[in-house]
């Protein structure tokens, strides 16, 4: 076991894994069936939405129940732009910036409030969003919705539509993931973590909780916009029902199930969002809600840290059944919290004030 991990920690192996994953992502759309590609693309769409939610909730600890609103706005802006033959780059930028600006404005007001008050403000977003989408029928197509096939494969590619759409999701979604990963692993991520764990401490260290909350919220809505663009690219249709409040709750559940404050967890959350309704449909289409509820409870009981902790849970059980698990493994805490979260708990403290994240300390050393 330890020889495997030792092997995996070598730099060239890590590069090799990255390369294999990258190549796999490039080749996958060409190999799979149409339905699989469409499913993967859908997972990508909602994985990005969950990622945005993770920035504000998982990393910064602010409850947001309005993420689906930003996805919806992004989708509507994309649909509007595409049906009016805007340049696709302009469409993309608008679909990201419009939700971003709305998110910023909302956050400027909402972040002044603490805790549950933010949740209340964000609940209002999808609740306002649905009637707004119905009333602004000149822009949104009203309750009949808006459809646009702007993302069909161009002729020069020789690809099927589903392959082209999956490439769009991989490239745009992948870039969003990399950018977000860098954001939450860097100085901003550390600031988010401190704001999450203790706002007073953050303020005493010169980190304005207000500014970082606004930042996290804005980033989440920007990412929501990206997800909205991809939604329109993959589903090619949006209507007021897209923004239904219950979808926001499902996104939240997906985030928790995937793993809060985890990049990979966001991806798993997206998979949960898309695949579980399909599985429950396969089992019994009349009991979908019940089955989804049961699965949600089951996951939270067995894996409170989310699906992302599954490998570690398995490793932990294996270790327990083998008492001679190697000396260095004993040092790790038996029940590890979700990634990202451990930063604060394991951080060396000076009089209760966290100084540095252990990972960074080691990397800088």
């Amino acid at each position, binding site marked *: 076991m330890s020889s495997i991990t030792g092997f995996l920690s070598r730099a060239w192996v890590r590069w090799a894994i990255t390369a294999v994953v990258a190549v796999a992502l490039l080749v996958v759309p060409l190999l799979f069936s149409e339905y699989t590609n469409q499913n993967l693309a859908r997972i990508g769409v909602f994985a990005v939405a969950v990622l945005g939610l993770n920035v504000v909730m998982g990393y910064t600890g602010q409850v947001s129940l309005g993420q689906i609103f930003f996805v919806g706005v992004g989708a509507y802006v994309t649909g509007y732009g595409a049906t009016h033959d805007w340049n696709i780059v302009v469409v993309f930028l608008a679909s990201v910036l419009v939700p971003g600006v709305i998110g910023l404005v909302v956050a400027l007001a909402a972040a002044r409030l603490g805790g549950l008050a933010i949740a209340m403000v964000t609940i209002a977003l999808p609740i306002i969003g649905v009637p707004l989408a119905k009333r602004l029928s000149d822009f949104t197509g009203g309750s009949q919705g808006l459809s646009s096939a702007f993302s069909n494969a161009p002729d020069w590619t020789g690809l099927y539509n589903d392959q082209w759409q999956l490439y769009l999701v991989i490239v745009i979604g992948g870039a969003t993931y990399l950018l977000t990963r860098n954001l939450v692993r860097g100085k901003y991520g550390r600031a988010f973590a401190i704001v999450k764990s203790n706002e007073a401490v953050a303020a005493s260290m010169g980190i304005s909780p207000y500014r970082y909350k606004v930042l996290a919220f804005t980033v989440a809505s920007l990412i929501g916009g990206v997800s909205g663009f991809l939604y329109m690219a993959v589903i090619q249709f949006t209507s*007021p029902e897209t923004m239904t409040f219950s979808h926001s709750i499902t996104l939240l559940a997906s985030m928790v199930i995937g793993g809060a404050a985890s990049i990979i967890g966001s991806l798993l959350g997206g998979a949960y969002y898309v695949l579980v309704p399909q599985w429950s449909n396969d089992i019994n289409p009349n009991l979908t809600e019940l089955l989804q509820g049961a699965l949600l409870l089951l996951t939270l009981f067995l894996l409170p840290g989310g699906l992302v902790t599954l490998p570690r849970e398995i490793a932990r059980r294996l270790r327990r059944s083998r008492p001679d698990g190697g000396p260095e493994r004993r040092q790790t805490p038996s029940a590890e919290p979700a990634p990202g979260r451990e930063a604060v708990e394991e951080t060396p403290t000076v009089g209760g004030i966290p100084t540095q994240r252990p990972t960074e300390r080691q990397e800088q050393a």
Partner: protein
Amino acid sequence: MNRKKNLRLTGAVALISAVAVTLAGCGGRDDSSGGARGGSAGITDSTVTLGITTPLSGPTAGPGTCTVAGIKAYFGAANAKGGVKFGDGKTRKVEIKALDDAYDPQKAKSNYDQLKGKVFAMTAGLGTPTNRAYREAAISDEVPQVLVMTGDPIFSDKGESPMQLGFVPTYINEGEAFGKLLAASGKEHSVAVLSQNDDYGQGYVEGFKKGIEGASNVKIVKELTYEATDTSVDAQITQLAGTKADVMFNAMSITPLAIASLQKAQQLNWKPSWFLPSNTSSPKAILEPGKATAFPGVYSVSFAKAPQSPAFAGDEDVKTFLSDLKQYGDYSDVPAFPHCMWSYMTGATLDQVFQKMTKPTREDFMKELRTVSAFSAPLMLEGTSVDTTVDGQPAVSTVQVQKYNGTGYATVQSFG
């Protein structure tokens, strides 16, 4: 620490691979999904499979469940008798694959993607946004999306929707039927209009105006709208009551608002004849709580026999329908939603089309689909019929105006 991090990364990669492999289980790119020789997907020499995506959970689950139960009841009974005899001489059993979309367009599209390679045609699904979500995909994939339960006229426009056909009358059809009845009454009428400010309300009003076109005895004295999300229409009712109109045309799809409108008008002692759309005219759910007997007449439109109505208690169609629904549709109660009857008729209409098909292909199906006319499906009211030959009209475009008689509805030939 690094080591732990890598273990985590490896674990995650392993998980993702597992998901990918599960997905890949669906197999490679292969479009011939086990169809009959020379035939389309979803049809063999002994079976034909139909796909449905409809809300089976969430707020619209009631009517949605009915859209599956009705067609299952019809084809369940047909299968029990051996199957449906197709025009190519083969007898096929009809299988139904129904999936839940919870009224979410995204899930409807996902269900369609899942079904399109396995089913011969999509049918009977309820909902405008959910049907619209895969309309364009169905056109480009050439998958029939027919006899769907939406009053949206786009589905019945051959130019816009070559692979589609709506089943139920459009909102325009319903409004027009009432307008015509009013115009033919020969008496002077002043009409107050309150409509929902969306395609639904606009469709009804458009149809109503078409119905009274050129009739000098009917005058619209005031037109107001409300939003589907409004919680009260008291202000509008008060304004309309001021006109003292003798007819109220109320194109409203929200149950509590419809009840509140009836009540508010009574409080104001304004008692016009009242028109309500088919989906908000339920005697039990709306008219009784709204004390509708206070009005000289409450009118609505329908094309299906209502099993609850005493008028049809002994009707043969209704008896067969209820026993089929119980036995094959997994639906043991007397249906509270007309969608059960509609989807039963959808089954009967598809049966007609199947009997005409000489080739087991989607192409031939679409061709024959457009040739059914003057077909009186089981449960249809006298004077209504299925006619798929008129471009721009759904399969059923004729409705009968009915008047509330204190317990249920009865068809009326003239206003008053």
